[in-house]
């Protein structure tokens, strides 16, 4: 794996999330476990918050 910073946690499911070392605050990344969209609130130390969700309609 490239240059990543560990220590962030998904606020939804507590997965450990690796943030790219060259990421910037306000970038959106996905949680690998629950696939929530997470906003990088801070890079050092890495802090994540839940990004606003676009509703998906699973209809049927």
């Amino acid at each position, binding site marked *: 794996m490239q240059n990543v910073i560990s220590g962030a946690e998904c606020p939804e499911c507590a997965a450990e999330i690796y943030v790219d070392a060259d990421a910037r605050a306000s970038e959106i990344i996905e949680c690998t476990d629950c696939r929530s969209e997470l906003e990088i609130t801070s890079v050092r130390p890495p802090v994540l918050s839940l990004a606003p969700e676009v*509703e998906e309609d*699973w*209809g*049927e």
Partner: protein
Amino acid sequence: MKRVAVIGGSGYIGGELLRLLTAHPGVELAAATSRRLGGRLIDGVHPNLRGRTSLAFVDEDKLEHYDALFLATPHRETMLRMPEFLARAEVVIDLSADFRLGCADTYADYYGVPHAAPELVETFVPGIPEFHRTRLRTADRISVPGCMANAGILALTPLAQAGLIEGEVAVDARTGSSGAGNTAGPANLHAERSGALRVFAPTRHRHEAEIAQATGLPVRMTATGVEAVRGVQLLARANVTGEATERRIRAAYRAVYRDEPFVRIVAHRKGLHRFPDAKILSGSNFCDVGFAIDPGSPQVTVISALDNLVKGGAGNAVQCMNIRLGLPEREGLEFTGLHPN
């Protein structure tokens, strides 16, 4: 002859209404609307109607006044336009979800938006002939239940009414792809949807609220998309009050469905077709209902099946129309279903 019309005639429920109404001896299909396809022949999108009708879709501004008007339009949008629709016909039969739930809060909870016309909701009679036939005879506003909801209501109400169920009912529904309508998107792309076992609602499917309301039972519902175009099958589990015997359960169903034209009790000891299966119901207006008892257990397992576009939608709506217009209840709905299929 009574003159009827369909709003949203280009969709799947709209198309099924057109199939049934063009072949119905007691009514004249006077108009079917489409916003996209005004002026186009209706057999362009509904190729099964070739040779059966030469009707073209009309724009809504061409609408007149009808004896009965069917609404085959999306939920959340139908409620916005209900006042216009009500002005267009003696009887309005709504197939959308918007006027099914008596409680506006429940609607908001399940549909994610506040109800736009809460004052109208209670003016609608549920389009469930089996339990509201008398009211339907004179109802000017009819709200037909959802496809899985109807399968659940017909499966559980007899047991609920007989006081045979206690505690929560767990409902597991399986559905074909036509239940989602004909708007193309990633979810119903053939290569994705074909052969899928897609748990699209692991909890709180919207029809849960309808079943709970109609049966008075606490219900938890999941829904899975399975490989089928048409068809809903529903499997429910509940604890039985008192002894869980085949006799008690069967008696409850018999008492309610003995003379029903479109509900069959299917719970056999042998044969290949012991329980309800949507496979043989395509095109027919039947809802098959069955059950099983596990000796020594307090539970009953209830199984029902129907064609979502017929008894789960358009067929049921036509049955309501027949009742309301004083036509023979089975008229236009006699198709037997196919086997094998």
